[in-house]
């Protein structure tokens, strides 16, 4: 009984931590739309979209790396040597790059132009990877098996797995939904490739960040049960 109680309080603390991390992420994404205009001339999300894209993905990446390394639930094996750490780091970088390429390929398969607008497409792939792959790398490490486990139904076992699942799914779905306005003939500036998709992904990611603590909090009983 006591053990369970302790477990549940631990869970609550975890959820709280998760919540703060997510709020921090959201605030920083919102800030990226304002802050750079103090330093850069005529900066706006729509007109200098690529700049914003780079800033946003960089910002999210840094925050993810720093925060998740800080609040990581179970630090990786203590006896790992520096060599081991470096190899993990390199591996993570390679994985990140591969995921960018993979996303790029998928976007092209979805019908994005192959040669023209290559940079735009690639940056879209980068921001998608930042929203999806990077948190996975931070939390799960370069371990494909673990990723697969997390991304199957009923495969997520901890709070962190669940939040990963939700944010990843929501950013991908956001990007997916973001493609819908493109064929409309409204001729708005945000219908230009890839703005609506990146915005969709960003909104999806933010929605996922908001939803996941709430969802986890409401389903915490089942989670406790499952992790046993």
């Amino acid at each position, binding site marked *: 009984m006591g053990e369970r109680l302790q477990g549940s309080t631990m869970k609550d603390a975890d959820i709280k931590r998760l919540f703060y991390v997510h709020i921090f992420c959201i605030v920083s994404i919102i800030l990226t739309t304002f802050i750079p205009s103090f330093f850069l001339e005529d900066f706006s999300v729509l007109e200098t979209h690529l700049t914003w894209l780079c800033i946003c993905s960089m910002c999210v990446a840094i925050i993810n790396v720093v925060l998740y390394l800080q609040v990581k639930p179970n630090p990786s094996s203590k006896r790992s040597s520096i060599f081991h750490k470096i190899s993990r780091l390199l591996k993570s970088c390679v994985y990140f790059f591969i995921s960018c390429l993979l996303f790029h390929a*998928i976007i*092209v*398969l*979805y*019908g994005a132009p192959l040669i023209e607008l290559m940079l735009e497409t690639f940056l879209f792939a980068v921001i998608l990877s930042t929203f999806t792959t990077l948190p996975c790398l931070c939390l799960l490490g370069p371990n494909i*098996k673990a990723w*697969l*486990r997390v991304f*199957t*139904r*009923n*495969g997520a076992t901890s709070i962190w797995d669940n939040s990963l699942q939700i944010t990843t799914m929501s950013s991908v779905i956001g990007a*997916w939904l973001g*493609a*819908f306005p*493109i*064929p*409309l*003939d409204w001729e708005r500036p945000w219908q230009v490739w890839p703005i609506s998709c990146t915005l969709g992904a960003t909104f999806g990611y933010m929605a996922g960040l908001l939803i996941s603590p709430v969802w986890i909090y409401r389903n915490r009983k089942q989670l406790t049960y499952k992790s046993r």
Partner: protein
Amino acid sequence: MRLGSGVFAACCVVIQVLGVAVFLRGFFPVSLRPVSQVQPQPPAPEPAAGTSSNWTQLPPAIFRKVIIMLVDALRDDFVFGSKGVQFMPYTKYLMEKGFAHNFIAEAKPPTVTMPRIKALMTGSIPGFIDVVMNFNSPVLLEDNLIGQAKAAGKRVIFYGDDTWIKLFPKHFVEYDGTTSFFVPDFKEVDDNVTRHLDTVLKREDWDILILHYLGLDHIGHLTGPHSSLIGPKLKEMDYILKKIHISLLSKEKEASLPHLLVLCGDHGMSEAGGHGASSVEEVSTPLLLISSAFHRKMGNLQPPKHVQQTDLAATLAVGLGLPIPKNSVGSILYPVVEKRTMREQLRFLHLNSVQLSRLLQENVPMYEKDPGFQQFKVSEKLHGNWIKLYLEGNNSEVLLNLGKKVLKQYLDALKTLSMSLSKQVAQYDMYSMMVGAIIVLEITILLLLSTPKALCQNAAFEIPLSSSSFSLLFYLMVLILSAVHVIICTSAERTCFLCSISWLMAVGVMMLISALLCVIVALLTKTFENVRPSAQNLAASSSGWSELDLLILFGTLGHVLSLGASSFIEEEHQTWYFLINTLCLALGHEVFRNHFLGKDLDHNLAVEQNIKKNAKNVLQYKNDYVDVPETSKIYKASSSMELLPKVYEKWLQLASPWFILICCRLLRTLNQTGVQWAHRLDFGHWLTSSDHKIELSVLTCLSLIMIFVLVQRRCSSVSKVAMALGLLGVFCYRAAIGNVLLPWQRDRKSISKGIIEARFVYVFVLGILFTGIKDLLKSQIIFADVSIKSLGLWDIYNGLVLLAALLLRPHNLPVLVFSLLIQAVMTKFIWKPLKHDAAQVTIMHYWFGQAFFYFQGNSNNIATLDISAGFVGLESFIEVPALFLTVFATYIGPILWAIHLLSFLSSENNRSSAISHASFCYALICSIPVSAYIILVTSLRYHLFIWSVFSPKLLYEGVHLFITATICVFFIVMDQTNLIKP
């Protein structure tokens, strides 16, 4: 009545096709047919009692030059209202001075520019079906004013909206078109017209000048009719009018005949600033006829008379001394001719009424009973008497009085004729539309309600037909509906289609509607009775939905919703490409999970998943579910894989969704369809350009070889040979008509129609189909092995593939190759190993079929229809085969995928109910978009794009549903052979 779900579905779709047909009949009322324009008829001679008149020629022109100044979206109050007083002083001055005849011309909906221009120039009321009848060319083929003017040697100049140039491509001696699609600009479009004015007004080498100003319409779309931009624009128009009028006046001194200046609008502007519907603001346009010939005494400024927009064509024709366009339903605006001599006036009116009564004779079977026609006959007789008196030299008061009487008679006759003719023309027949829509909706609801039962294990269920058809509700409904029918038909002024059919058939329709309603009610009550106990059961099973099911559900929903936006209809291919891409990714995920997690996770989880997946096969009704022996399935699956080493098998399976994705991406580049990106260069255009004939030949050759390789493994040995020869014939046909080059005759110039080659291929197509049917019959009669039946089905499939190879244009052959390739890959690596159930496989087939419809270059626009396929192997146009071939060639994608579904399921044969389930799902998934779309189109019938975007799509949907019905019936016939066997 107990019915198999397949039979039920087929019946439903067939009834639905009837419903759609009734709806279409109401939506596209058959308007006045363009009369065949073979020879111009000589003008009707003047009637004369006893002696024959010497005036058989057309009367001479009244005006020397005509300038038509068309201001787009000019509403009547912009000229006649307070805005006119404020901003159009010169126009006001002309009206007050009596230089102008002013009218309010009523435009018929759709109040969109193109049909309105047609109405102005032909005097007829164009319906959409006319557009369909001469599709592929937006050129106006109907008898019209511009054509008549050109034939009479008049020189026409046009500046303005380029719709005119599309309608009359070779009629103008000089033109400058401005595109109307860039709405935010309202200055440049008008300056482009005005800049020619100074020079052209000085010149003498033209007879008709047409100016179409778009700026006002653009302002309306942007800011509405009360914006501050309207005033300056009206001022600008007034200034231009002044300029033209003064220049015309200055020239008139030398000329013998006066000039005519027409100021008009094509349609009005709603209070929101748009147009297209039938509100008073949108249909009322000013019509000003300005000429020095009209000069009246000052001071009698009368309020403008209401006339029809179609009256202008007849008036202008008379004014220019041209024959009145044949299909014109308008009557001459009498004030224009009132200054002429009595004989001329009567002559003009006679010509007009002869033309109208001819049109009436051609379109109304009971024309003699029409009051207008009777009036016309009376006045013609009187006219004859008048002429007789006139020719006898009588000049007394009697003649004048008689003349006035004849004139009045003629004007009445014209009015009545014109009224009864325009009543005939293109208006939505709401009653038929409603009846059709109700039938379609009822069927869809019926299908949806019976889904859970239809997809259960034994694929058969009870239809409460007999019980409900004797219920009180049924009789009540029939009575009410019949009463409604009688009321509508006796009160309606226009003719409805349903009122024109025999009452027996009408009662049949009413009975059908009520019977369907009763069945729905009975099913609903039954479902509600059942729901309560099994609610938990339902909730439990709905959690077993896999990602694939969710994707299918949301994809279908999303597609249906997307039909509400005109852009999504124009770009529907994007929706389908997007969906199948997502489908492939989901399949990739499933394959991945199947391979890596099935082994690594503990066995329990995998088994649990497996059971879930199987359980979902029979979604809702778990109690009906009889466990399929799982071991035998697994055994079967593994035995098929033993041919390849396990490792390769695994990697191939993992790669297959990606391979399909790459194929789809390649196919996308082949044909760029739609509207927004249609101008992008695509591979198809590159191939068909004459510089790349060698590449095209090589590609065709490779494609044909690939088709043979992919198809032959399922052929019987006889049809294998036939297939090879047939494909060879296809290449010869393409070489004969000059699409591709044969290697040994590099520079053959002579190009034949390829009749022999095409018929050579047809022989093999029929041969293969015959072999297939023979096998099917054999399997039915001799109770032989099921394999014979599936062999027969595959033969039929292959025959259709050969026909498709013949009909597809050579650059589209890769579409066929990839279609076969994807089918093969999906069969081997996805459907068999992952054990998808019949419903899932069916919907995947449907999605791919839809995507391939667009891959082959089709779109929801009639312009992309490839009618050349209808002439393959035919000496001349023969309606039935040409129609069949065109429809088949257009729907190759959906048809081939559907037949593949049937062949695949029957050769798998793991469950006897699979085909019934498949046909049910197929019917359901096709009927949902159709019924949703019919409701949409009914509510959007006054939308701006109804004729350009929504109506063609409606036709495509209708034909698609018809094909679906045919396919479902074919499914049932195939399934029935299965059922006859013990």
